[in-house]
């Protein structure tokens, strides 16, 4: 919040003033021995500290996969919790190496902030949550409602567009932190709580009586969430991009953390190239040839990460849907390692 926000921004201003665009991020990361990863301040399923204080979640596991690829150690990563408002400045100033914080890929963010989006680790969309007692079944019945949301997000813009497009009056109350939004909604300050659908399921767990609330069926926007890096360092951009692709390709090839050692002796050329027993694809991006093997060994493939953090067996209980592989009806797709 305010206490942490100002140092970050001032640091950014000074950082921008003092240092130029630094070139080889990968060498810097290797030299310091860990990846500095920007995450949320606590969103169950995506980035959230567990009861022992360890960070868990889909976004967190992506950073662990990067650490595994570079250092062969999924724990060689340090996490910086950031609010929606602080996140880009922290990345621009070089305070973090990669931002993996349920961040929506939009054109202005990609082109005007000096940042690059490396891929889409989760295809999301914005939804609404209301109290069941209101008896509402569709978002189109929300005319005249008061809506709570977090400031500095695409959510805030989408909700304005949606109500304007459907000619419905509404009132908005925007808070700095997600927890404050949840608290205000729980206290009845607003009728509707809106954020990415995945976030709605996650935040519902924090309410006094989760069973009293329902998520409305409408999805009003495209929210492709993914990791972000600084512009101007193609090597680091490639490392981030291909760690993501390796996760998808591993799932597609049937390689997971349990069978990855056996798979090393597989005759399938796709698997051989992925796990580094054939060719020198890892060296080309400044890593070792078994980079993808390390990722799968320590963190698992994309499917495993999904099931472990947000899948049907977790409290969030989200189905794969759009996030299934392209070969299974979803849109997760990666270029081949070749």
């Amino acid at each position, binding site marked *: 919040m305010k206490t942490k926000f100002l140092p970050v921004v001032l640091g950014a201003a000074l950082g921008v003033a003092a240092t130029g665009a630094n070139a080889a991020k990968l060498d810097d990361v290797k030299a310091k021995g860990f990846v500095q990863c920007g995450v949320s301040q606590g969103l169950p399923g995506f980035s959230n500290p567990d009861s022992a204080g360890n960070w868990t979640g889909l976004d967190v596991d992506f950073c662990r996969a990067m650490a595994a690829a570079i250092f062969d150690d999924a724990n060689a990563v340090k996490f910086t919790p950031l609010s929606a408002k602080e996140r880009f400045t922290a990345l621009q100033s070089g305070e973090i190496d990669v931002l993996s914080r349920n961040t929506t890929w939009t054109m*202005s963010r990609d082109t005007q902030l000096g940042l690059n989006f490396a891929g889409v680790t989760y295809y999301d969309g914005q939804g609404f949550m209301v109290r069941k007692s209101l*008896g*509402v079944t569709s978002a189109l*019945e929300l005319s005249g409602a008061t809506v709570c949301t977090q400031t500095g997000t695409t959510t805030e813009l989408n*909700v304005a567009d949606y109500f304007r497009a459907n000619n419905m009056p509404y009132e908005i109350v*925007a808070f700095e932190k997600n927890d404050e939004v949840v608290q205000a909604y729980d206290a009845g*300050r607003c009728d509707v709580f809106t954020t990415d659908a995945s976030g709605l399921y996650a935040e519902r767990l924090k309410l006094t009586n989760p069973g009293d609330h329902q998520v409305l069926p409408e999805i009003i926007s495209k929210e492709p969430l993914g990791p972000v890096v600084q512009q101007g360092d193609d090597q680091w951009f490639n490392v981030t991009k291909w760690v993501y692709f390796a996760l998808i390709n591993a799932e597609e090839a049937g390689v997971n953390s349990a069978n990855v050692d056996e798979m090393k002796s597989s005759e399938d050329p796709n698997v051989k190239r992925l796990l580094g027993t054939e060719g020198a694809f890892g060296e080309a991006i400044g890593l070792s040839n078994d980079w993808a093997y390390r990722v799968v060994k320590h963190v698992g493939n994309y499917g495993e990460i999904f099931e472990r953090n947000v899948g049907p067996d977790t409290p969030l209980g989200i189905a794969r849907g759009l996030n299934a592989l392209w070969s299974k009806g979803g849109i997760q797709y990666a270029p081949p390692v070749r």
Partner: protein
Amino acid sequence: MEAHPPRTSLWNDPKARGIIFQALLVAVLSYLVFWIVRNTIGNLEKQNIASGFAFLDTTAGFGISQTLVSYSETSSYGRAILVGFFNTLLVAVVGIIAATILGFVIGIARLSNNWVISRLAYCYVEVIRNIPLLLQILFWYVAALRSLPSKREEPLSLFGLVDMNVFGLWGPKPIFGEGSSTAVIAFIAAIVITIFMRRWAHKRQDATGQQFPVGWTTLGLIVGLPLLALIVTGFPISFEWPVFVDTGPVFGRGFQLGVGLNIIPELVALTLALSIYTASFIAEIVRAGIQAISHGQTEASHALGLRHGPTLRLVIIPQALRVIIPPLTSQYLNLTKNSSLAVAIGYPDLVATGGTVLNQTGQAIEIIGIWMLVYLSLSLTTSGLMNWYNQRVALIER
């Protein structure tokens, strides 16, 4: 023979040397500033980060819960920042007035001969000024929200005038019809007449010793003239009352948006917390100011035949104000700057709306620049006004 001072070299002349050193310092400082600015612009360009103030004209696209000037989602980012500025100004002005009144009352109560009253004031000061302000803001916001009736329940009514629920305070909104500007003009005229009347009364008393009932005449003028204007124009001011509906579509129930005057709970909580907190400091300043005047002054004016009221008004308070004004100014500045804690409860002040703009555009340096400039100007204006007032009440030695 005339004694010429021996010619010294420029370097050994203390005056010239002073000027040289100061010029050198200014040159180094300006180069440093120039270097930082140039380097920042260069690096922003190198990193492909947009810079400049062109973004102020682009469409904002987000909504704001309280707007004192007209604003919609299609307004520009610059407009959004302006909305935030007025919201900050509102909290600062209301907060300063409320804190001053409360602070003076508590400060005087602290000196009361009544044991209960002075102890109560003492407890107030010690408890309030020792709890962090952020906690107090959260207390008023969370406690108030949780304990008030929800949007569609029967609201809590205060004297049948103001209703309270989780959506804040609801009261009558004055609608100024045609001709109401006459009343405003009458009000301004009353103030001008009062100033001249007071000068005249003062002069007359100095010359003849005769007194004039200044207080009553002032009250009569300030209240009477606008009232007269209203009667003449046939009461053009009407009130729009909030409408409470408890049937129909579910989101249409409760108070109707845009009908009547609605004060959002964030504003209520923030103003309450800020004025209660600052009042505890003002109370101590007022007590210190009054106690700084020796008791001999009171006794002397009593001996001259002045009653208790005029003693306080003409002897004690004018002298106490000299002690009170400078630290009071600091408290006013603190209150204005502390209002930026609004972000914690979602009140759309300058920092909150500016922060949203910052995040949507990513132009941190420009926004921080605007923030600093606005708070600096607000503070300089406040301290300028207070310094002017301080000079007026300062001791004039003859």
